[in-house]
């Protein structure tokens, strides 16, 4: 279901509010559409829209299209666009805002692998205080594409031979404290 113009407007507004909160975020309005970001982006070729087009879409009131595309999820956060942008827009941070908004609103194409991975990652930190690599990979392939996971077996065996696969996960000692900290953020956010 495509969004109505009002819905898109509200979405853009919410997005901009978040962007303005990041340092230098208000510079998003200064974009001159020069294409430096898209030309610098290592994954631009695989993106349905380049980074530049995100701002063009925002201005045109078509931001919803960006959430339907693979664009934001292909950002590898290499920060090349950020350091090069002649308008000083912290574009990598803007991409993160889009990811977060997408996750929050469930606005991403079904099975977007990064969103799945991010959720497992967050869950792992909540449980153990650290990321458990093996668990992450295992769950990731289970939830996205078990067949592809099978394709990873040879690499897994190689790593296993080198004793580079660690199965156990150690919980940090202060896990309770950490959970309280994260809960405090949630509480604060809920209040708003």
């Amino acid at each position, binding site marked *: 279901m495509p969004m109505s113009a009002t819905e898109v407007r509200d979405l853009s507004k919410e997005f901009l509010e978040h962007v303005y909160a990041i340092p230098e975020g208000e*510079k998003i309005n*200064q974009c*001159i*559409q*020069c*294409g*430096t970001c*898209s*030309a*610098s982006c290592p994954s*631009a*070729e695989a993106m349905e*829209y*380049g980074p*530049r*087009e995100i701002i063009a879409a925002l201005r045109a009131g078509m931001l919803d299209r960006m959430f339907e595309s693979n664009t934001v999820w292909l950002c590898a956060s290499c920060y090349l666009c950020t350091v*090069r*942008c*002649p*308008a*000083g827009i912290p574009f990598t941070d803007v991409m993160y805002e889009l990811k977060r908004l997408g996750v929050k609103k469930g606005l991403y194409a079904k099975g977007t692998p990064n969103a799945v991975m991010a959720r497992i990652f967050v869950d792992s930190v909540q449980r153990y205080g650290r990321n458990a690599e093996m668990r992450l990979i295992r769950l990731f392939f289970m939830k996205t594409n078990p067949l592809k996971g099978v394709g990873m077996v040879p690499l897994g065996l190689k790593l296993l031979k080198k004793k580079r696969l660690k199965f156990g996960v150690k919980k940090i000692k202060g896990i309770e404290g950490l959970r309280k900290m994260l809960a405090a953020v949630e509480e604060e956010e809920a209040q708003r």
Partner: protein
Amino acid sequence: MVKITIDGRKIDAREGQTVLQAAKEAGIDIPTLCHHESLDPYGACRFCTVEVKSRGKTKLVTSCTLPVAEGQEIRTRSEKVKKTRKILAELMLARCPNSTVIRDLARKVGVNRSRFRRPPEDLATITDQEGCILCGMCVRICDDVMQVGAIGFEGRGVRRKVTNPFREPSDTCLVCGACSSVCPTRAIEHSRIRPQKPEVIPFEFEEGMSGRKPIYMEFAQAVPKVPVIDEDTCMHFRTGGCKVCEDNCSAEAIDHEMEEKIEEIEVGTIIVATGFKLYEAEKLSRYGYKAYPDVYTSLEFERLCHASGPTMGKIQTRAGKKPEAVAILHCIGSRDENHLEYCSRVCCMYSLKFAHLVREKTGAEVYNFYIDIRSPGKGYEEFYKRLLKEGVHFIRGKGTEVTDVWETEEEKGKLVVISEDTLLGVRRRVPVDMVILSLGLRPQDDADQVSHLFSIGCAQGGFFLEKHPKLAPVDTPSDGIYIAGACQGPKDIPDTVAQGAAAAASALSLMDKGKVVLEPVRAKIDEEKCCGCKLCVANCPYQAIDYNEEKKVSMVHPELCKGCGTCAAGCPSGAATQENFEDVQIFAEIEGALAE
């Protein structure tokens, strides 16, 4: 005047001349190898031998050492002379059988092979064995003229050779190149004297794309059009010797003792027209300037396509190849928060000019990478359209990176420009042979100091600030100081000329009046109230207040006072006031501003 006869021709020679010089002036060719204007005659090669008849006797003498004398009769082509030259040629040929200079000379006098035996191997250490004829010019110029004395002779007879002391690499040699420049057979090998590459002095005006001498013309249109001597590289200033240029100047116009002079001129008005500087390409490492030789700044390219430039206007790569494709990257450094925030205004048009010249001169494909084409001048848009007609490519997207990392065969050995074609939303890689960076304009390095010097202030970006953008575009806050040209902001030639004329007219109109109108804002001191504390004397930045010892009060010199009012603000007794800005007036203003 001395009257002599050469080969039957009567010649007027000058007192003190040698026969060789007199003959040369008269256009009579006497072959020689070891003669040089800056060196004393030495007679080493003996090739200039002539037959001279005086007082009835004839004898063979080297003409380079023979002074002219009244009534001398000289023969330069007699059988005796010819025979002597042949023998000399044979001797030289025996020593240097492979030297082209010697072989050509020998052939000229009819010698093709030598009857003499070749001297033993290892004749020379610093010279090419095949070439050195032991004329000693290198040793003499190094010693007598350059006053360095890095090389000398060693051994005698057939073992004689030119060497470094102890045959060790020299550390006294200054790598000036005088030895090789005088060597008649081009036999010197620098690296054997001192293993250090002779440095080319980069010619500033040509952006270092060609070299220059220590004495040079700064540029073709220099005013006054006289050469200058660069003291840092001139041999005379390094060793006290040389002065070869003086020997060569027939007008005797060169004076090494002349010093830089600073003249103080009293003037009534000043026009500041200090220009701009090109933004530094090195600050944008992603374009590979300096890393890739065929990435040029716009100023470098300007010289490259100029008829008087380093290639005489031929557009070619550093390797001397005609380019097949050229990329011009607009907005480099300009419109960029990390560099110059403003639009440099002239780059679009000069980039279009470059594109046109490349098309015209080489027929190469030209790719302009631009964000916006700004052509808002008279006839400018028409020029843009003409280029579109000429088939120049325009890619709307900032040229983002230049790399030599190739992905396809087509890109191999080329420079690849990466950009987004924003009209298509597609990332493009364009392989080219040359890249021109259209760099922005920035203020001069000392703009800040100059602005302080004249109290004129700088606008954002660092260019000088005009008094009013519309009503006083060439005036400054300092009366009598005017600004013109790119020091006020990036601008092209027509605008600069117009502004220059305006500034000159403004300066003239001020001078024409012959008097200056002062503002009616002055400090004054009420003698009744003054307690003589002298605080105002210390406060005044213009020494416009003096303390009158007799009256025990301070007094203002109205012609010196500029009316800042600092004295009034600091006066404890309320004696110092500022006309038109008196306390009561300001109080009234405050009251007015705060009235309900």
